């Protein structure tokens, strides 16, 4: 409970600092959270970037493929190196 309140407080302080700093800065380079929320709404309603779902799906697919390949190669390579004892050899991992 206390930790949760502390986290919420920290988040509120961060947002307040961001809001103040964002309003003071050049609007082309930094925006406050109050300007991000309408942009986020437009984004999620597919007004600003209609191809968001396709892009998200593509990124997820790329991550899934890269991870599956990394797991297969990493496990295979790791077990082969460990079983052949090459991991302890000079110049080994």
């Amino acid at each position, binding site marked *: 409970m206390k930790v949760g309140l502390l986290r919420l407080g920290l988040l509120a302080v961060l947002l307040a600092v961001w809001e103040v700093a964002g309003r003071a800065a050049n609007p082309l380079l930094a925006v406050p959270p109050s300007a991000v929320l309408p942009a986020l709404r437009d984004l999620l309603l597919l007004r600003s970037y209609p191809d968001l779902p396709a892009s998200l799906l593509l990124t997820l697919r790329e*991550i899934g493929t890269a991870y599956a390949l*990394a797991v297969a190669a990493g496990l295979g390579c790791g077990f082969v190196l460990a079983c052949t004892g090459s991991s302890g050899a000079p110049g080994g991992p």
Partner: protein
Amino acid sequence: MIAALYAVPAVVWYPSLMLFFGLDAASKIAFGFLLGFFPITLAVLAGVRQVNPQLVVVARAYGAGAVTVFRRVMLPSMLFTLVGGLRTGLALCVIGVVVGEILGSKAGMGALINHAYGLLRTGDYVALVLVTLVLVVGSDVLASLLERHARRWTE
């Protein structure tokens, strides 16, 4: 050698990957793979080193086969390290793919972020970063659930 290769900043390979695989998904997958491969391999090696050899000898003496020794002795001993490596690998794969898309891509979240940033549409840029952040945090939550499940299994 693997640890030495892991120490090389992976981003130096990205121009070569783009030359080999082009601007499509393949170069991002290759970059994500390159970042995720090393921690997983090193976690397997560290995990295997953690297995008490005496337990393996005792299991063999009791007539356990190679598969049983792996499943009942080695896997529980190394699982925690292995799952930690898999979690790190997932986080680095996500970073690799998104960074790859930002550095050079025609589609994907990184390309959208790059587009918004290039046109100084800062509000859209921050909103896209927030959506990507949700994606990253979601994948980490999934990995942490897997890690917790593995911890319960080894206890």
